[in-house]
């Protein structure tokens, strides 16, 4: 596999995404909304009940930060679905497949393109979240909670979750023939991460550094398995002859 070929494809995709306002807004909006919403919750609680007790804050902020992992899992599906099914819909896949590129190079290029914007947006959103939360909670806690190990693991979990989402979208894209269906299937990535979040909320698991590391490791293993599966399901012949 030639990485430079994949990068050429990724660069082209990124150039197109930059010109599609819906993709830009869609990518930025979710993390930005979290950056607005969570500080408002803290400010509201402070005004209403004299603030959240310091002992609850680290757990609550961990739970909040997990939403950025959910964002990273949801956001790439739209881009990844567009990158593959969109090409077929616009009939641009055939000339691309006729170039001296392998299926793996095409898939990797499109995956890189689907990976970068959501990761950049989620990491930027999480960084803003850290700064805002430090400012809003330092008085109650008496120290700056961020950076700490748990947020470090969240930073790590974000790309791992995004990769999972991209791979599932690629597999979905190889099976369906329109962007909306691929996007809907890819969007289901929201569910497993929401389940993890709710499990944390009802006390089934604690979203602490150790458990987040275990979750990251487990998803990473799934990522690797799905990579081979997604390459295997991407068959240029099937795409050309069966997609309508």
């Amino acid at each position, binding site marked *: 596999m030639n990485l430079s070929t994949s990068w*050429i494809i990724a660069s082209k995709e990124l150039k197109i995404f930059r010109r599609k306002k819906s993709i830009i807004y869609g990518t930025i909006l979710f993390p930005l909304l979290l950056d607005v919403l969570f500080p408002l919750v803290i400010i509201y609680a402070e005004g209403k009940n004299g603030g959240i007790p310091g002992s609850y804050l680290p757990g609550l902020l961990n739970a909040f930060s997990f939403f950025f992992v959910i964002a990273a899992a949801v956001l790439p599906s739209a881009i990844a679905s567009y990158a593959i099914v969109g090409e077929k819909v616009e009939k641009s*896949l055939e000339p691309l497949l006729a*170039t001296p590129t392998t299926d793996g190079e095409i898939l990797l290029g499109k995956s890189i393109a689907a990976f970068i914007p959501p990761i950049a947006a989620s990491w930027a959103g999480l960084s803003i979240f850290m700064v805002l939360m430090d400012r809003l909670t330092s008085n109650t806690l008496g120290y700056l909670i961020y950076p700490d190990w748990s947020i470090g693991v969240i930073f790590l979990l974000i790309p791992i979750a995004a990769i999972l989402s991209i791979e599932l979208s690629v597999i979905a894209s190889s099976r369906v023939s329109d962007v909306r269906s691929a996007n809907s299937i890819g969007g289901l990535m929201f569910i497993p991460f929401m389940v993890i979040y709710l499990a944390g909320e009802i006390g089934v698991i604690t979203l602490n550094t150790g458990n987040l590391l275990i979750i990251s490791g487990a998803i990473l293993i799934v990522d690797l398995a799905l990579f081979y599966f997604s390459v295997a399901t991407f068959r240029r012949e099937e795409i050309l002859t069966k997609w309508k």
Partner: protein
Amino acid sequence: MTAVIDTENLTRKFGNLTAVENLNLHVEEGEVFGFLGPNGAGKTTTVRMLCCLISKTSGTARIADYEVGNEADALKIRKIIGLVPDNVGLYDDLTAYENLDFYGKLSRCTESQRKENIKRFLMMLGLWEKKDVMAGTFSKGMKQKLAIARALIHDPEILFMDEPTVNLDPESAKTVREFILELKREKKTIFLNTHNLDEAQRICDRIGILNTKLMAIGTPEDLEHSIGARRTEIQLEQVNDVILNSLKKLSLGKISRDESKLTFELADPYKENPVIVRAIVEAGGNVQTVSVSRSSLEEAYLKLVREKE
């Protein structure tokens, strides 16, 4: 001359449907080969097989020195070919220049090669002024021209074109045809799928007529000669029963009458025309004009396609 496209019993089936059956083709270097056939005849399937986009069911095919169907050769084949698919498939959100530059990069052209070829082809196709305009805003004709430039950006040895003038207005179709003729002058090997008989006749060195199976192959002239009989048209002052009866006695081929004009389908008009004229004169007829015409490529094509159906 070396065969750069060579197929032997090339077959492709989709389930129970046979799209291409036992295709035997030899296209030589520098040749413009036209592939004629009705919709669903297997033209696009053939091009896709030869471009290593879909697999063959059986038979063999070689492009230059590489074997179609061999995984290791597929990339090498795609390096030396250019494809203009039936749907142009440009990136609407990229400019004309960016579209070509992307494909140039994928084909491992150096920056200077890309710059040079992009300028050269956009100039040749009259699109240089539009190089920074988004391809999505182009007319059908402009998009088609850009798709041709895209297929040529890496100077391929063989150019596959699938219906390059279909859906184009006459002016754009003419520009595309002229460009293909320009490529022909440059000795580029071109494999042209087309519905357009006139286009095939004007552009192609040889033509293959496909209707799942290869029905005929040869130069346009060969096809006209071999498939259809030649016609003799005789304009008389008046046609009467005496003349017709005397002509029937000659046991000629098919005779048709349109008022005072008689048309004969003959295998060898130069041998049979004097006999016919003599018979008419002896029957009291007055011959005004005699003309010989060959059956057209269109007639040959329709005859072959209808035979299959």
